[in-house]
């Protein structure tokens, strides 16, 4: 009886001293130097490593640290959290165009870059890219454009040859001045090669056509949901259904393991490819298929999918330095360097016309002049306004299309469901 409590006391003392000791171990060493460390938050690959080194060399006292999150889908909620809680966003953040509109709704979270001499830079960006990150009255600019997801059409030369179609990229581009011509080519292809899909899945084509079809999609400029009154959405849907019914699809969802394998195995012959997708194709198809994939122009008049901005959150403690860095990274020179590193296509006309971009050929894609193909596509672009729930509604429309592909819904039912889902979501 006399022993146990005393042991208990000992144990408690030990325990608490242990806790205290471990609590002491958590401190972080502070750098005593007067250097400013700028934290840049990015997703995927921005290709800035060389630029950071150059900037640090020319700006003594500035250190740059990039904190990267692989997938945009994982990055978005984190970014929202940092901004909402006022902590953790660092000094420069990357914002993708599909999520930009929700941040534009709260411009106070970002530094007005016009206050940091961004005004004279407007000529360095495609006008619509500049517009996207400016408030409607033009008094505030929260982000500077980095890249644009310029669109091309990737195709398999060997599969085209087997189907008796031309393989030369100019001749292939001439096969499809319009999407109707693309469907006609697809029917021709399927007649010869019934076991190969003409394209991967209808969702990707739908998106590409939608971005070509007008200046807005599911929302009008006042953020009113117009999915069922915007004729452009409906006609794009109908065109997609026509493709499904023509049996052109391989019915393989984008970003699934089967899709990844499909690049290697040749289960589909074409895929609309934004410039940043070339890296994905090269990685998935592997070195043994070098030269089999090629790039040509996309039907219709160019389009854009994706593309980003750099912004400085107001929570940054080095706003001035951060704004300077963002200006440097998004300059024509910075964009050219990022293009060379990771194929991120520039949004600066000066960079697009730079011979380093214009003459760039991608050896994996049969030495396709990707700089020129994407450059032509970008110049044909019209800006498209994307509303607040754009990406979420896009997911639901994509699911409805998939259900038609799977034969689980009739096209009419699927459309009604997509509209209904969008309305419930936006409510």
């Amino acid at each position: 009886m006399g022993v146990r409590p005393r042991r208990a006391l000992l144990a408690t003392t030990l325990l608490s001293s242990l806790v205290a000791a471990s609590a002491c171990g958590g401190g972080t060493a502070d750098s005593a130097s007067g250097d400013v460390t700028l934290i840049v938050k990015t997703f995927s690959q921005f290709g800035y490593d060389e630029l950071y080194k150059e900037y640090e060399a020319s700006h003594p006292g500035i250190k740059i640290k990039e904190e990267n999150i692989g997938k945009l889908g994982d990055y978005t909620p984190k970014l929202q959290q940092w901004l909402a809680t006022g902590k953790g966003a660092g000094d420069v953040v990357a914002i993708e165009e599909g999520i930009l509109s929700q941040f534009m709704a709260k411009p106070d979270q970002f530094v007005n870059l016009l206050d940091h001499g961004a005004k004279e830079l407007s000529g360095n960006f495609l006008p619509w890219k500049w517009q996207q990150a400016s408030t409607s009255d033009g008094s505030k600019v929260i982000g500077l454009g980095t890249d644009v997801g310029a669109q091309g059409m990737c195709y398999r030369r060997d599969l085209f040859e087997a189907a008796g179609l031309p393989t030369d990229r100019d001749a292939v581009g001439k096969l499809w001045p319009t999407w109707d011509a693309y469907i006609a080519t697809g029917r021709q292809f399927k007649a010869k090669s019934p076991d190969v899909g003409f394209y991967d899945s209808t969702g990707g084509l739908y998106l590409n056509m939608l971005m070509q079809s007008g200046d807005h999609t599911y929302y009008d400029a006042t953020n009113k949901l117009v999915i069922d009154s915007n004729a452009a959405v409906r006609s794009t849907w109908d065109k997609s259904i026509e493709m499904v019914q023509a049996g052109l699809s391989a019915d393989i969802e984008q970003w699934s393991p089967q899709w990844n394998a499909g690049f290697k195995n040749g289960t589909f012959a074409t895929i609309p490819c934004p410039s940043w997708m070339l890296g994905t194709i090269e990685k998935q198809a592997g070195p043994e298929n070098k030269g089999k994939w090629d790039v040509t122009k996309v039907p219709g008049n160019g389009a854009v999918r994706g593309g980003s901005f750099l912004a400085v959150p107001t929570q940054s403690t080095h706003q001035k330095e951060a704004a300077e860095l963002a200006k440097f990274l998004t300059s024509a020179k910075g964009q050219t360097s990022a293009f060379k590193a990771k194929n991120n296509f520039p949004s600066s006309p000066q960079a697009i016309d730079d011979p380093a971009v214009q003459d760039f050929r991608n050896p994996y894609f049969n030495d396709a002049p990707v700089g020129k193909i994407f450059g032509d596509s970008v110049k044909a672009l019209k800006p498209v306004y994307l509303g607040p729930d754009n990406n979420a509604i896009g997911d639901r429309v994509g699911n409805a299309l998939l259900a038609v592909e799977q034969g689980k819904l009739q096209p009419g039912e699927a459309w009604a469901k997509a509209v209904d889902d969008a309305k419930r979501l936006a409510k």
Partner: protein
Amino acid sequence: MATDLRPRTATSTPPGSAPPERPRTGLKDRISRVEVRWSPYLFVAPFFVIFAVFGLFPLVYTAWVSLHDWDITGAGAFVGLDNYVTLFADPDFWNSVHNTLGMLVLATVPQLLMALVLASLLNQKLRGVTFLRMGVLLPIVTSVAAVGIVFSQIFDRDAGMVNGLLGLVNVDAVDWRADKWSSWTAIATMVNWRWTGYNALIYLAAMQAIPKDLYEAATVDGAGRIRQFWSITVPNIRPAIVFTVIMSTIAGMQLFTEPLIFGQGSFAISGGSLRQFQTVSMYMFEKAFRDFDYGYGSAVAWMIFLLITVLGVVNFLITRRSK
């Protein structure tokens, strides 16, 4: 149990020495009385503190959030039970409840029956019995993600092994993700594969505590193996069965990773084009972390909690009444 009844010579006062100096130790005595009184609480405290921080607080806070129009920027307006009203009229929510319960039945019933049979086999005198007993535990060591990825390939539409085998007997390839029955089967298969061995070991431990003479008496009375199994083994391991049923129900109601990995593409959280296999925890995740409707997501989370509670009580009543 051997209890040491010898006096603890090291600490007790040796006989014949001076009597204990009681009056002098007034303070010490009081401390030791406080210690005796409170140290047991101190010992159990870590559990309760951790439970309060990581269990009770989130539970209550989630309830609080669910009464608000709460988005990523923090608390919005207090909306009372609005989120629950919307939830009760939300077809996607009921669809996810339906899916979860369907997969729960498909995953729990065969799993526990197989585990029972497996356990009684492992309870025999077998060659290499330890090896076999450890072997059934292997699936539980495998990571859920790995199980999800491998089984997703096995159940692939174009290149999957199951469709390959079906092809051998001239059955058309099944698009496993396109229908409820097929996707539920594929996901339940993953759960069964992973958890059967674990449950079998729990049953086995319970079976080994059954006195052998019961079986001997039954054998003398002429009862066969199967009769012995149902009349002796099963009733004797009832507590273990109740435990596994409740645990499987809880795990089944929280099913998340397997269907998420089974789904494809960037909107996999929807569990199929028509939400064929979206479970209720996936729906909660979609609402809270994809649509950033934290209030609504919290309402879904509370419904999951209530559903588990109801199912737990039902389980308990059924298994107790049939005693």
